[in-house]
């Protein structure tokens, strides 16, 4: 299997994954992960400096894929869902959310390019005032000394660099899992079972749907809801768990979709 890896600008793990899934239409489990890894390492080598953040990101994705793959290969799995399974599902849906987001911005980028291309067919007038208005123009160099000029030259002649080290939090979307968990609990507690589709009918974006899915999983993990799915690809039915009555409040999850700490 061949991998088309861009050579000029590094496209990133999501693009590679998306290409594999979308263009080659392969089952990811039949993709030789080592192929992706090789392509990636080659890409890393070609970069001037090792991009630790990207490398870490890729290893994380590769690890999730390997684990998903290994589970699929196991013939028998315990019928009940374990903590580990849930954690894996969370990772999987996190990954899915990221892929959907990445796909969205790729398409948006292409649309911007189209706008630019169309706009470039109509060029602005930039000729400026005729010579006879020249005397009216103010001295644009007022207040500018040789040292200002030197600084400007240094800025212009150097590659623009911004502070490289940042400790930052990543905000994937406005809706947090924590918020959704609370909203879902209020919606479900003491009410009859609802489908996941109903729970998300007001969602504004797919990311939001995914966040709701994670919220449901979180409630499930805490034993507050039960999830039923009658058939493969069927509707997910979510119901408040009777055994707990309406006593506990849901514990706020880590909210890892909201705060992903990047160390680097």
């Amino acid at each position, binding site marked *: 299997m061949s991998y088309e890896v861009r050579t000029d600008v590094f496209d990133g793990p999501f693009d590679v994954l998306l290409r594999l899934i979308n263009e080659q239409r392969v089952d990811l489990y039949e993709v030789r992960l080592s192929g992706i890894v090789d392509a990636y390492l080659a890409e890393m080598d070609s970069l001037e400096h090792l991009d630790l953040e990207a490398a870490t990101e890729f290893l994380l994705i590769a690890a999730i894929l390997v684990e998903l793959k290994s589970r699929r290969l196991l013939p028998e799995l315990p019928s009940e869902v374990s903590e580990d399974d849930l954690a894996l599902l969370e990772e999987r849906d996190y990954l899915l959310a990221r892929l959907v987001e990445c796909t969205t911005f790729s398409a948006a980028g292409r649309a*911007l390019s189209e706008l630019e291309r169309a706009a470039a067919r109509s060029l602005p007038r930039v000729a400026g005032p005729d010579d006879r208005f020249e005397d009216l123009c103010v001295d644009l160099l007022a207040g500018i000394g040789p040292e200002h000029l030197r600084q400007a030259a240094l800025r212009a002649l150097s*590659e623009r660099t911004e502070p490289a080290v940042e400790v930052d939090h990543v905000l994937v979307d406005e809706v947090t899992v924590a918020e959704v968990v609370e909203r879902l609990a209020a919606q479900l507690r003491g009410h009859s079972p609802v489908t996941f589709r109903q729970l998300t009918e007001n969602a504004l974006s797919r990311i939001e749907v995914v966040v709701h899915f994670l919220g449901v999983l979180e409630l499930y993990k805490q034993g507050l809801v039960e999830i039923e799915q009658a058939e493969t690809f069927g509707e997910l039915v979510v119901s408040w768990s009777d055994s707990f009555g309406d006593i506990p409040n849901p514990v706020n999850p880590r909210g890892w979709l909201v705060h992903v700490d990047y160390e680097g």
Partner: protein
Amino acid sequence: MGFDDSSSERTSEAAIEAVLTVATDPVPPRLLAELLELPADRIESICARIAASYEREGRGFRLARVAGGYRLQSHEAYAGYVERFVLDGSPQRLSPAALETLAVVAYKQPVSRAQISAIRGVNADGVLKLLTARGYVEPVGRDAGPGQPVLFGTTSLFLERLGLDSLAGLPPLADFVPPPATVEVLEQALRPEPGV
């Protein structure tokens, strides 16, 4: 031709034309209103009339509303002639990676480098540098959070180059969310076992 216009109306049209002829950037209607001592909504309606007359007469230029102001620009119908005249050629096209980053900044601004990197799954430094050098993107402030990372936003040059009056003119991001079928494909590809 407007021979039924009042002469002051004709004067206002011509004064706006004169100003736009010498302007090098889009002229905000507020500034035109000050110069002509007319309310801003009158300026808007006069400009709409000028624009319509150019279109009706099949002129080689048009009056466009971009980046919050008015400017004269060549009519796209004659792009062939203009392109041959402007020998510099069009600026180098942006790579898919740069476009994707530009889209993230456009729709998520103000946004930090780390946020961009997280969405794209790859370090965004190089691409951000390119977009900044092109003048499409600029630092617009600092986040209040730890490390006070620089936040990036798009410039008015970005609006000008895309022919947009404001960011509100960007097509809605929702239009680009992949259709359910695509998400289904992604979802199934990541499915550990059928029917979880």
